[in-house]
């Protein structure tokens, strides 16, 4: 693992994975993502300072994401090369599928259940 940015109050942690060359966001078990959390996580990724890098978001244990948060992920002006959504539970799959299906993302987004497959795909989207 490389440099890490963790906000202890937040239901997620963000760090830079030097080996994979991706930013990582891991949502805590039962995490509820509202607008404030969405803004904080995007800001934390930007604060890593790697520009338009690929991003891996581990939402396997996220329980809910509200509409304002989904809108923020879609419309936030932050730069990102591609986003891999790592899912596990039925609920996280539903959330990921909904985001990919309903929102018009400005960058490539794909859902994975296997972390290494996600990293391989993100590697192909490095700018």
């Amino acid at each position, binding site marked *: 693992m490389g440099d890490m940015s963790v906000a202890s109050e937040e239901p997620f942690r963000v760090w830079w994975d030097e080996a994979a060359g991706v930013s990582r966001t891991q949502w805590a078990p039962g995490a509820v993502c509202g607008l404030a959390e969405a803004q904080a996580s995007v800001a934390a990724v930007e604060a890593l300072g790697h520009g338009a890098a690929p991003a891996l978001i581990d939402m396997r244990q996220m*329980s*809910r*994401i*509200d*509409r304002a948060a*989904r809108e923020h992920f879609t419309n936030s002006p932050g730069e990102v090369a591609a986003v891999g959504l790592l899912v596990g*539970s*039925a*609920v996280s*799959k*539903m*959330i990921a599928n*909904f985001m990919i299906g*309903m929102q018009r993302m400005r960058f490539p987004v794909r859902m994975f259940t296997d972390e290494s497959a996600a990293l391989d795909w993100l590697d192909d989207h490095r700018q």
Partner: protein
Amino acid sequence: MTIGNEPRGDRIDQVVILLSRLASGELSARGVASTNDDDIDAVMAGVNMLAEELESSRAELEERVRDRTAEFEKLNHDIRQLTELSNLLQACETIDEAYLVIDHSLGVMFAGLSGAVFLYRASRNVLEIKSTWGSRAGSAVLAPTECWALRRGQRHFVDADEPMLSCRHVQQRTGDSICIPMSAHGETSGLLHLMDDRLHPPETQVGAGARLTQAKQSLAVAVSEQTALALANLELRDKLRLQALRDPLTGLLNRRFVEEWIEREVARTDHSGRSFGVIMADVDHFKLINDVHGHDAGDKLLRAIADAIRSSMRAGDLPCRYGGEEFLVLLSDIELPALAARAEELRSRVAAVRVEHRGEPVPGATLSAGIALYPKHGLSASSVIDAADAALYAAKRAGRDRVNTAAVRSSENFE
């Protein structure tokens, strides 16, 4: 709140109940997930997210409907104002009345904007301001070359942020502006100019802060068309009215005008207690000139006599061709000695008239005239003309080329 150990059937019922509430239009309804994180929770999460989307879409649609309704209300308001302007302009009898209507109506319609209406002078080399409102600063006249809209024959909008091709007549730019040529019947009669104050909004002016929106620009175009058409129609009406009251051969006023004027003048004189005078004049032996030299020569002589009569008039005198070779002059606020002097001057000027026809001199003409004063020689419009006419024929009988005063009315005139 999450629910842990409810039976599966109850949880499916909850999903069904949620769907029923949403289907009935209760888009704020949400389901509560359990801690199982299973397929039913996934369905519940999906339904909740769909409900959020539907609720948001409905709110967005309602906002758009509100916005659109406000737009329609504004449009409706503009159309009502435009109709009101059109009705007022159609009711105008004179161009000066139309200017008053324009001044009032455009100030109301474009409240918060500065503006002006310019119209071409008769010479058509400059336009002069006829109406202005708001805090417009600028000259009262402009040359057509100072305005891009007039030069191009189409509306010209200038964005205050990029004031390229700003018209030279705009001396102080306070915001966005538009110039619209006022055209009707294929001819440009003037210019409507509007400007907002978004660069320098005044702090206290009532109605300030209006913007030159697309809707305002469209309204301005419609106003420009309506106004130009109304002004053109009034000008045409004036022209036709003038033509109907003018004698085409001499350019003098005609008998119809005399009849209209004299009735009004009788009423005015009765009110003021003053007098007006009538000179009834007839060219002596005119038939002979027609018979010997032809009608063209006769017409030429009549035009020259009309010019002589016109040149002997003073401001306010109204010379008319009453018929054939008969002329009548109406003179307001005059007494008998002055009336007699004017008639004598008229006679002597006509006696000096000389014309040629086809290179040959036409014999000079003399004039006999009868004068009468209202109310001294007649108590009605027709009786005073009759009195002047009688005096004229007395002058003819007395040898022509002279002025004769009407006899003072007898007691029979009092009816």
